[in-house]
């Protein structure tokens, strides 16, 4: 009897070991794991739902090409509903699920929330959808970076462009959110330095803004240029539409999140051509402009191969995800090449060492990431007829 029991226990132990063993082997970094939170529901679901497939596409492309350092990568995306606390829970779960080599955050709020806790073995190289100025801070936020200019830089690019073109009066219109307010103090400083006069500073609700009152104030101030900040899909098209219907000559300008062709096209199709002439700063080259962009051509060919009906356009929000992941991949490769262990510190050190790197499309000039951001961008202009954003400035560096 006792013999039997012993054998039984042995068998049980062997079985357990056998079932656990693969888990241990898996933990031995067979894949490079990247976690991610995206707002698939909630106020920014539009953005999240467009970005999520891009992450998967990127993974498949990298793995088709042999992975990173011979190992495949894997992205696990979760929904956050644009609530920082939920994203933090997602992050913790991703951490608990084994070695994590990168994380894609979904909001400024999450990045601020998780920032202080990224220490020791919790440290992970972290990219995000946000361009909040406070995140490009190598001293205070050693593990977070952004693949583009901060909102402050973006507004500065716009203001420099306005000054170059002889503009004198500017209105700053922004949503009452952290996102909307981020670059405003900096914008005031730059305006003073460039001799631009701010004739109106208008705070709007983030959604369902009182368009009539805003247009009334805008008409009274009558600025030559109006910079819109802190909107994604709402408010800005309505505001411009009302201003055009009113007959205001003001030139409207937006930043990254208000510069998406898909949104502008939809407004043009469904409401009318009033976004014609709308300008704004975009850190990246638009995807349709792939002539000088070998990377875009590769993505395009791959997508065409996957789906013959691919229309040949990838939203800028997804491009942001691509370039973020490319920078991560580059840092991985540099770290592997230097034969260092893959830790967040080594990755970030590699990333900071990226200098004069050709992004093969995204940016016009070679980039460096010493400051955890890429201070580059171009001013584009939308045409309702061709439905394209075409550049009206050179690449401006800040």
């Amino acid at each position, binding site marked *: 009897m006792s013999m039997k029991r012993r054998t039984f226990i042995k068998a049980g132990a062997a079985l357990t070991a056998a079932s656990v063993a693969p888990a241990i082997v898996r933990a031995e970094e067979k894949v490079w794991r990247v976690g991610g939170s995206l707002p*698939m529901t909630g106020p920014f679901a539009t953005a999240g739902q467009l970005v999520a497939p891009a992450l998967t596409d990127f993974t498949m492309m990298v793995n088709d090409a042999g992975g990173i350092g011979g190992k495949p990568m894997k992205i696990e995306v*979760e929904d956050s509903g644009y609530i920082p606390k939920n994203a933090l829970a997602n992050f913790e779960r991703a*951490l*608990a699920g084994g070695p994590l080599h990168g994380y894609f955050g979904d909001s400024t709020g999450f990045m601020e*929330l998780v920032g202080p806790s990224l220490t020791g073995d919790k440290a992970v190289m972290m990219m995000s959808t946000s361009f909040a100025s406070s995140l490009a801070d190598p001293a205070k936020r050693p593990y977070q970076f952004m693949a583009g200019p901060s909102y402050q830089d973006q507004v500065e690019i716009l203001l420099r462009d306005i000054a170059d073109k002889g503009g004198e009066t500017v209105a700053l219109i922004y949503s009452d959110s952290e996102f909307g307010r981020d670059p405003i103090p900096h914008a005031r400083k730059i305006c003073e330095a460039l001799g631009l006069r701010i004739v109106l500073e208008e705070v709007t609700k983030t959604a369902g803004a009182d368009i009539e009152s805003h247009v009334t104030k805008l008409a009274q101030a009558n600025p030559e240029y109006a910079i819109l900040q802190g909107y994604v899909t709402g408010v800005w098209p309505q505001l411009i539409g009302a201003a055009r219907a009113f007959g205001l000559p003001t030139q409207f300008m937006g930043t990254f999140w208000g510069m998406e062709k898909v949104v502008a096209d939809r407004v043009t199709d469904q409401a009318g051509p009033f976004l014609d002439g709308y300008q704004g700063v975009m850190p990246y080259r638009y995807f349709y402009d792939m002539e000088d962009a070998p990377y875009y051509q590769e993505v395009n060919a791959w997508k065409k191969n996957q789906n013959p009906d691919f229309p040949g356009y990838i939203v800028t929000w997804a491009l942001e995800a691509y370039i973020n992941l490319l920078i991560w991949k580059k840092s991985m490769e540099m770290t592997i090449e230097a034969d260092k262990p893959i830790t967040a510190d080594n990755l970030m050190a590699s990333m900071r060492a990226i200098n004069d790197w050709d992004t093969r499309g995204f940016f016009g000039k070679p980039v460096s990431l010493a400051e955890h951001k890429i201070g580059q961008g171009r001013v584009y202009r939308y045409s309702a007829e061709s439905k394209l954003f075409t550049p009206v400035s050179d690449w401006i560096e800040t």
Partner: protein
Amino acid sequence: MITGNFKTSYAADESLWNNWAKRYGFVLAVVFLLVLPLFADNYVLLLAGQIAIYVIAVTGVNVLVGYTGLMSLGHGAFFAVGAYTTVILHQYVEHLFPLITLLVSIVVAAGFGFLFGLPSLRVKGLYLAVATLSANFIILFFIRQDWAAPWTGGRQGIETPNAMFFGQEMLSNTQKYYFIIPICLAMVLFAQNLFRTRFGRALIGIRDNDHSAEILGISLYAYKLKSFAISAAYCGAAGSLWAYFFPAILPEDFSLNLSITLVVCLIAGGMGRTLGPVFGTLLILLIPEMLKIVSGWATGGDGRALIHFSSIRDIVFGLIIILFLIFEPMGLVSIWDRFWRVVARWPFSK
């Protein structure tokens, strides 16, 4: 609506646990909570800590909504008051003993509770709910302002201090867990105890019929105000722990969403019962995570499939709340009661 508990002796009325199963169940639960960190990872501890904090807050809401019968949709504000009080205190005294900040946060939140409670004599039902909801918005508005930013961090939120116990900084989730759980247990027990006293019974009297209660000599105003203060104090404590638990706090953490979640937790668990908040919080906080795990498992983190899955997850979550209301209107606690009834009467019941 619960109309009362049937008891045949004063001893039964005064006992903290009315049967052996509850007593040993409590001991078992404590033991489980103590050993949980031994085999739980950071994620589980994050959830556990979060749930414990919510339990405290929902218990507070229970004092007001479940026992006193006053509706509030503004408890997020007390949460915020507690959290920001803790952060601000640490700006002036760096290594303050956490229990002191906890106490101060409780007192400050109770003060705010007094303020919120002032209209509660005149304003009733939904009007009171919306009055508190408005107060919630207004308090958050002040927290967000730029002139308040040096203390509150404004819209950007602010990094929170770590609790220090005798030179030992609480950094890991495990340490934070052991800091929060005892406080949570103590506060839940305190609530259980509260309703064995004259004071607690007076509140229940007000809930069941405020005019009758007044005729019986209960000062409505004094008791409603005290109930508001106690309820706010619980949320203040939760807020304070929240500040210690998370690395940063943002104003939108404490918005209407939180206030509604607290009430939903209470309803799902069962109003006017001590265990109600515990069960309700477990259910409401764990369902989204479970659904997320299920969707993660079903989609393998594939972004393309996730688009549909997140919408379905929302629908399922909403349906669970609705189905609970339809089929289990007294909350999870009534399932629990039925279970114990069956156990106690076995084999004479099913």
